[in-house]
């Protein structure tokens, strides 16, 4: 074999030396074109009046002041907070309950069976999930009202998505996997990762099942719980599917969301500057939230790394 010497370096020497850069070049070019440029231009566009075709005109912060005086946007922000709070409790609650129950089985194959049961619904396309829930809430022949009628609770049947009082809560309940597959898997694998001697010590101390869940599992799973909560909240801030598929933000502004506001401002009213500004505000909400959560994450005495 020939080796590269200090004097006569073969081309392969340079290939080897610059290999990381050669490997990363396509990645970086792709990211610059499709991620970095759009990200930075979004901040710029948010300061302009622009319909996407003519040259953008710089208007300073006017889009932002417009947003904070637009009740549709403000209602959207309020809905976002309510919607997200409900989903954090609901999705984490059911997934954690299911994970604890599956964890109570000793046999690995029984656990795998239940994991598969709750994970398969995860691969049903999101739009089908929403459409199906649209049918569940459908007033005439929908599942929920038919069920209520057939058990004699017809008085509670409702236009779930068509009434301001219930529309927002109804879309917050959309999720077939009541047991949300991803959170469930993260929790169960975190539970399985708790060191055996911790559980043994707990048993020796004579703590019952509920005591163990509260005093051992919850603190040990702090990292996973916060991780999933962050995912749900970041998803909640960007929510747009229920509006696009089910409610179009209505009735009135009952189910408006900032994400849907961005979509409508840009692609229905061609106000690209306003849409960009709304997007920027959502990013800030997300960043502020993440900052506080990550700080809370590192305050814990016990931590299980994901």
């Amino acid at each position, binding site marked *: 074999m020939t080796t590269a010497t200090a004097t006569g370096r073969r081309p392969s020497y340079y290939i080897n030396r610059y290999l990381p850069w050669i490997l990363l070049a396509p990645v970086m070019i792709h990211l610059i074109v499709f991620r970095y440029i759009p990200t930075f231009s979004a901040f710029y566009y948010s300061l302009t009046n622009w319909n996407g075709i003519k040259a953008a005109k710089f208007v300073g912060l006017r889009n932002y002041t417009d947003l904070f005086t637009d009740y549709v946007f403000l209602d959207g922000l309020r809905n976002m907070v309510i919607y997200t709070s409900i989903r954090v409790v609901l999705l984490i609650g059911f997934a954690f309950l299911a994970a604890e129950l599956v964890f109570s089985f000793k046999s690995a194959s029984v656990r795998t069976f239940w994991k598969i049961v*709750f*994970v398969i619904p995860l691969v049903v*396309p*999101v739009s089908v999930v929403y459409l199906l829930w649209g049918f569940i809430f459908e007033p005439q022949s929908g599942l929920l009202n038919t069920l209520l009628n057939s058990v004699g609770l017809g008085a509670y049947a409702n236009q779930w998505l068509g009434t301001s009082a219930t529309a927002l809560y109804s879309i917050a309940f959309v999720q077939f*996997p009541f047991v949300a597959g991803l959170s469930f898997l993260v929790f169960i694998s975190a539970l399985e990762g708790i060191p055996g001697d911790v559980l043994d010590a707990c048993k020796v101390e004579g703590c019952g099942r509920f005591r163990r869940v509260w005093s051992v599992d919850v603190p040990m799973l702090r990292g996973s719980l916060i991780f999933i909560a962050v995912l749900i909240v970041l998803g909640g801030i960007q929510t747009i599917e229920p509006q*696009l598929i089910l409610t179009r933000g209505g009735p009135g502004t009952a189910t408006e969301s900032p994400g849907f506001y961005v979509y409508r401002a840009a692609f229905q009213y061609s106000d690209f500057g306003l849409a960009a500004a709304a997007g920027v505000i959502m990013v800030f909400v997300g960043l502020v939230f993440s900052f506080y959560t990550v700080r809370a994450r590192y305050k814990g005495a016990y931590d299980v790394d994901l």
Partner: protein
Amino acid sequence: MLTSSRIRLAFPVIVLSLLAVITWYPLVFMFSTSFKTRTQFFANYWWFSWPLDLDNYVQVWPKVSLAILNSLQYSGGTLILVLLLSLLGGYAFGRFNFRGKNFLFLAILSLLMVPGILTIVPLFVQVRNMGLLNNPFALILPWTAFEIVFGIYLMRLFFERLPKELFYAARIEGASELQVLLHVALPLALPGLGSVAILDLLFTWNDLIWPIVAISDQTKLPVTPAALNFRGNNVVDYGQVFAAYVSISLPLIVIFSFFVRKFVRGIEGI
């Protein structure tokens, strides 16, 4: 004897079964209704009606098959690019030390904090100016850019866990760096690439908003937005609608049922 310990053993099974029924029944309902005529739907609402009526599927198949083919094309193209770029990027970060490595890695990771909704407007303008609207690449290229961020992160972790001696040994044996990448790193990277592939497929198959924005030609839509077009206006034939939803959901369910154990482990590994 029904002892208290028996009740304690039965309790998780009962609650889990209840949760499973709530989770699965809407799916089963969709499936059973997809085999019903209109009269069967109103006569027997809750469960399967016999004989199964396949006409709904025959009716929706032309449109559905078109959407599925589109999705396979878009998601498949994205998958190839994502795996390739994640492999290259993850390998560069996981195997080598070079100047500016940490800065570059942080710069890539920070993209995780940039949500799609922020960039949707500028990205749309950019893709339009490139003349890509209604073209498969209008979806493939931006989707790839979104998915490789986490892909590179996962593959870097993966390569860092492999013992460095493997690569040194191959180098000492006289393999060039490119040969090391192709013949040592790639085969070892397959499980990691599997996790990346799963996450990527779930993302591209489910994305709704970007295809709606970038593809205006209804015959070119992938399955997730195409599903919205099967809703009737007033007189709804639920059998047909649900037949469309079932056929649209099937490809991914079939793919994943082959890999479900790997899938469970893959997600747990993240």
